[in-house]
């Protein structure tokens, strides 16, 4: 048996397997596709990289793109840790945006700006949580598969948004016109400030870009969710249910409640993605009738980023930035050398497939590791845990 520190080092290396293999495989497939399309592979990747990080503005746009993806990914970490497959990020994000913009418009100018922003964020979280909670409730108490219900609820959410934007939420100055339906613009004082970073000699980075404080909010949320998942009883119960729901039930955990809670938290994070997108970037809600017109597929990309980050909120941060860069860079690739951005959609799919396939190897290894660590019952943090893990091994 290898010495402990060698083991730990080896384990850490093994954790890097899914991102590295999936990225390598995706790059290989993308290169083949580019060659088949008679595109210069090197040129294409250069355009991709330059579009993502080539200029100050490109880097800022990458981060801007990463913000909603990160919010969703953090929520996905909670849901997937409870073994709840939440595909409803799109709908929950829309629900959050609708609630947030409603509060911002209703109370803007009547209450102190900071209070309105906080209320708006809370409303977004609550709306997303309720919307996610519906799917959680249906799964826990009616045995409705959450993958299916969340997919359906995505469609319902977008039509609900279309209806509200055409009616009650329509910008009053737009009534009777035939413009794309949109809400009124939120007051300037309610906008999340642009994020500039002071550097030495008074140089400011990201000064003339769209980067906003949503990034800080998302990172704070990652910290909160990390603490919640790994350092509170709530998080422990959620993970126990995900690890083995039968064992958790024997251990006295209310499995149904954890499932609903996990979906509420995941939905709440997605709801925040929506409201931050409004307060920080678009300053209003508008629709072209399709869900992606507003969400930019963040609900799906968030899943990819969460997996890529090893279902850990901190891992989700670089993963979201990476995918933000991929998406922004893909647009540049299209502009510069005419490679359709759909190539990146396909490559993203390949990354997901490889990431989730190689994840299995890591999990199996982790499970073995955990068994070794937890086997003596005295090291378990609570009797519940010991019971749960004993049952899990049975």
């Amino acid at each position: 048996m290898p010495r402990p520190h060698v083991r730990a080092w080896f384990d850490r290396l093994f954790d890097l397997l899914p991102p590295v293999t999936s990225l390598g495989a995706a790059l290989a497939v993308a290169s083949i596709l580019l060659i088949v399309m008679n595109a210069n592979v090197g040129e294409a990747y250069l355009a991709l990289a330059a579009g993502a990080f080539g200029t100050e503005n490109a880097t800022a746009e990458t981060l801007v793109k990463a913000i909603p993806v990160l919010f969703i990914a953090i929520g996905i970490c909670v849901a997937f840790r409870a073994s709840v497959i939440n595909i409803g990020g799109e709908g929950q994000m829309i629900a959050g945006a609708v609630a947030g913009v409603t509060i911002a418009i209703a109370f803007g100018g009547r209450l102190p700006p900071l209070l309105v922003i906080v209320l708006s964020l809370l409303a977004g979280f609550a709306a997303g949580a309720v919307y996610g909670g519906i799917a959680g409730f249906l799964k826990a108490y009616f045995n409705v598969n959450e993958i299916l219900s969340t997919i359906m609820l995505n469609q319902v959410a977008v039509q609900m948004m279309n209806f509200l934007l055409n009616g009650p939420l329509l910008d009053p100055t737009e009534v009777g016109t035939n413009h794309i339906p949109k809400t009124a613009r939120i007051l300037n004082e309610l906008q999340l400030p642009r994020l500039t970073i002071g550097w030495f000699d008074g140089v400011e980075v990201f000064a003339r870009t769209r980067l906003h404080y949503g990034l800080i909010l998302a990172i704070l949320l990652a910290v909160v969710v990390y603490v919640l998942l790994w350092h509170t009883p709530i998080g422990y119960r959620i993970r126990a249910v995900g690890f083995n729901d039968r064992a958790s039930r024997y251990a006295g955990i209310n499995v149904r409640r954890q499932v609903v809670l996990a979906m509420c938290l995941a939905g709440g994070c997605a709801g925040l993605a929506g409201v931050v997108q409004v307060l920080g970037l678009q300053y209003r809600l508008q629709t072209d009738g399709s869900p992606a017109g507003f969400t930019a597929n963040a609900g799906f990309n968030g899943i990819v980023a969460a997996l890529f980050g090893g279902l850990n909120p901190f891992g989700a941060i670089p993963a979201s930035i990476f995918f933000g860069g991929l998406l922004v860079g893909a647009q540049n690739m299209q502009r510069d050398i005419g490679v359709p951005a759909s190539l990146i959609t396909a490559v993203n799919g390949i990354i997901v497939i490889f990431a989730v396939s190689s994840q299995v190897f890591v999990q199996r290894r982790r499970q073995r590791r955990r068994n070794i660590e937890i086997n003596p019952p005295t090291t378990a943090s609570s009797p519940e845990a010991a019971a749960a893990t004993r049952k899990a091994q049975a």
Partner: protein
Amino acid sequence: MIEQVFTASVFAAALRLATPYMFASIGEMFGQRSGVLNLGVDGIMLMGAFFAHYVALMTGSAVLGVGAALLVGALLGLATAFVSVTLKAEQGISGIGMYLFGLGMSELLFQRLVGTPRSVEGFSAIYIPLLSDIQFLGIGEIFFRHNILVYVAFALVPISAYIINRTPFGLMIRAVGQNPQAADAMGINVARVRYMTVILGSMLAGLAGAALSVALLKVFQQNLTSGLGFIAVALVYFGRWRPVGIMIGALLFSFVNALQLQISAIGLNIPSEFAVMAPYVITIIALVFASRQTEKPDALTKPFERGE
């Protein structure tokens, strides 16, 4: 008023609309009965739709197009099975990966190989002699004036029910889906059965795409399916993993869709957002009722580990 809404043509439209769902859902059912959830149906449909359309465009033969769709479905099914069965990846997520791959790839191929939307000859409606002339209750119009793939889709219901319930292969599928350990002990090759069902299901998903691009719509465009494949997966649950149940679900969903178009066409004043929303809401409600007494395969989404 009522007779204006519930016309024979609405029922006929429901049958037509149900066709792609039925191919995809029945295919999905085979995989799920053996314990594999394939969530990538929509992506496979898109690839099937593209290749069917492209081959039909190049050769002028819709039959060859269908063959291409079946072939590409089989290949993607092989990949899905490899990921789900051999590598034992989380099925819900790898399916999203397959969906994104199909979505991006079909668009890329379309842009490069075809470019602008073009229509194909495709399959036209076949009027079944005598039967299509029945005026009584509009039976002729509802049932007997469809293209060949509509008939095939409905013929698939008894055929697949027979395969699942009455053949040794069906017995193996059910055994593997209910209790893979026991099946393994009985000498059934679990992995092989699952490979076969997933490949068969994906071929039917490819066929569902072909039904859109060479029979119902006769054109191809980016994201042609608009998420139809996800509904197809939901219908499997709705239909409680039985072909007849799936048919009923597909017909109900399609009927609500046809109805909302009819209501809009004759100018009844319902906000169109709610009309578009209706099929999804009804599916959720139906899922609630369908899931109470579940007949879900016990091993669904669970990879098989020998000797646990």
